[in-house]
């Protein structure tokens, strides 16, 4: 009877922008490096800190390397790491969440203890420490991210599933003779799916940010690899000569995180 909330349209537009930005970023990351065909590591000490030109569309850095090539290569690294760690966090996290809420008892207590152990420390701190076991290696970073991110899926799935499994509709389905597969497929997944997607988008944003943050404070990915955070550290001393250079990786990072947030309507499920 009451009119629907007017915000709905605004959010859909936001999502659309998010999707387009994400698609564009993914395309750049996958095809970009091949298309421009410039080696991001090739130095040219005769052409350092240059502005945009026909040869170097976004200029060159302090070692004369092509900025566009380095940004694209950085995008590839960030997005790949984010996608990989989100995937390896989401699947076990969701499955364990369903498992815990389904069986309860010791299974649930044990899994919850694991989750609490991960949650005892702020996420970035844990990633930082895990990555520090083998500094500079991308796999330590990846393992740290996955290990930190799975908890959100677990917690969300467990909490929602507990509520859903105690609903009359599940009892009705059991009385009608349906088994676990049906209940997971028809009751659980449709209800928690959208929430999981949102967690995935926020998790990917967290991963991209963490990779850059660690790179920026010199404890993550190391130079000479082209990574946005590393690029920012390296270009910061040259802000006076070439402020447009330091702004480029910052902008890339912000746009990526913004696109991920927008694609799921900005709000995090609780």
């Amino acid at each position, binding site marked *: 009877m009451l009119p629907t909330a007017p915000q709905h349209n605004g959010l859909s537009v936001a999502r659309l922008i998010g999707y387009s930005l994400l698609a564009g970023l993914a395309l750049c990351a996958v095809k970009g490096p091949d298309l421009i065909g410039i080696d991001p590591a090739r130095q040219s000490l005769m052409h350092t800190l240059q502005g945009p030109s026909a040869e170097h569309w976004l200029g060159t850095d302090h070692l004369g390397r092509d900025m566009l090539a380095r940004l694209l290569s950085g995008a590839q690294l960030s997005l790949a790491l984010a996608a990989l760690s989100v995937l390896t966090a989401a699947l076990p996290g969701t499955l364990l969440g369903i498992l815990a809420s389904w069986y309860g008892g010791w299974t649930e207590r044990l899994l919850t203890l694991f989750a609490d152990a*991960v949650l*005892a*420390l702020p996420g970035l*701190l844990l990633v930082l420490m895990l990555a*520090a076991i083998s500094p500079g290696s991308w796999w330590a970073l990846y393992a740290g991210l996955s290990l930190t991110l799975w908890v959100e899926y677990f917690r969300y799935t467990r909490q929602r599933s507990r509520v859903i499994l105690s609903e009359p509709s599940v009892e009705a389905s059991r009385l009608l003779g349906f088994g676990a597969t049906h209940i997971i497929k028809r009751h659980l997944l449709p209800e928690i799916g959208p929430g999981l997607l949102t967690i995935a988008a926020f998790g990917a944003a967290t991963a991209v940010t963490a990779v850059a943050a660690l790179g*920026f404070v010199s404890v993550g990915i190391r130079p000479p690899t082209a990574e946005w955070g590393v690029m920012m550290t390296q270009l910061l001393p040259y*802000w006076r000569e070439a402020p447009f250079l330091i702004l480029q990786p910052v902008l890339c990072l*912000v746009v990526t*995180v913004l696109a991920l947030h*927008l694609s799921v309507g900005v709000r995090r499920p609780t």
Partner: protein
Amino acid sequence: MIRSSGLWSALAGRASQAVLVAVVVGVVSFSMMQALPGDSAYRIAAGRYGYDMMDAASADVVRTELGLDKPTSVQLANWLGSLARLDLGKSAVTGNAVADELKVQLGHSLLLAGAGILVSLIIAVPIGIAAGLRPGGALDRITLGASIVLRAVPAFALGVLLMLALAVHIKLLPVAGFQSPKHLILPALTLGLGLAAVSSRVVRDAVSEAMAADWQLFSRTKGLSSGQTLRRHVLRNATLPVIAYIGVQLAYVIEGVVIVESVFAWPGIGHALVHAIFGRDVAMVQGTALALGLTYVVLNLIIDLCCHGIDPRRRSIT
């Protein structure tokens, strides 16, 4: 009957969280130790006696003394045991006791965290209330847009942008260091803006939800004016979710402290942690991470107690 079981379970929960913090930090630090290249007995001996005085014999003494020839599981147990005795060891770089270094740094970090939270409240509360009173209004939409964009700017990028915009361009503020109160402004602003990006929306939601509640309308229809209703009912009710949300934001505060300190060379625990990781100073990594983790737990506990104190439902007569 006075119900206080909620308080005790909160205390017990935080206590077990503190234990988990110690275990996780201990295990990860131990793994870091194991992963270091070379013979750890040599390294420790070098740390103790200096590189000049150290030889294979002293390394062997260390090896037997610390049980480094024993299986990994025994070594881990020993490691966690000394952690349980709060024996944090010495820094491999400076040679000072880790605990002594932490004492100074912790004060600096708490100052920064406190200032950051203060800045965020100064920004978020008035904006949130104003936006929440007119949901969908111009201010609401503008601050929503600002919040979305600001949320997408990670703390260190925000730090860099503020540094470029304020300190260097306007030559207004010192960029890095810790010599005067002025040095606090940029780091606190960085931390506070990041926090306010989300908490302004939390305040806004709490206020607009309270304004849409049945009891808000009933307070009006029983004859109270809009100002009276706001002061007596709406703000009181809106405070609770906001305080609870500060608890959620603590993780961001701690993460922010680590990153912001590194950006502005603020001599706090976060800065020390990053340095220790970079320098492979495992004892310092363990000490700083433990201090940050326990600070996180204590701050959470304070928020728990605040919520408990504010919400009469938690200690009501039933």
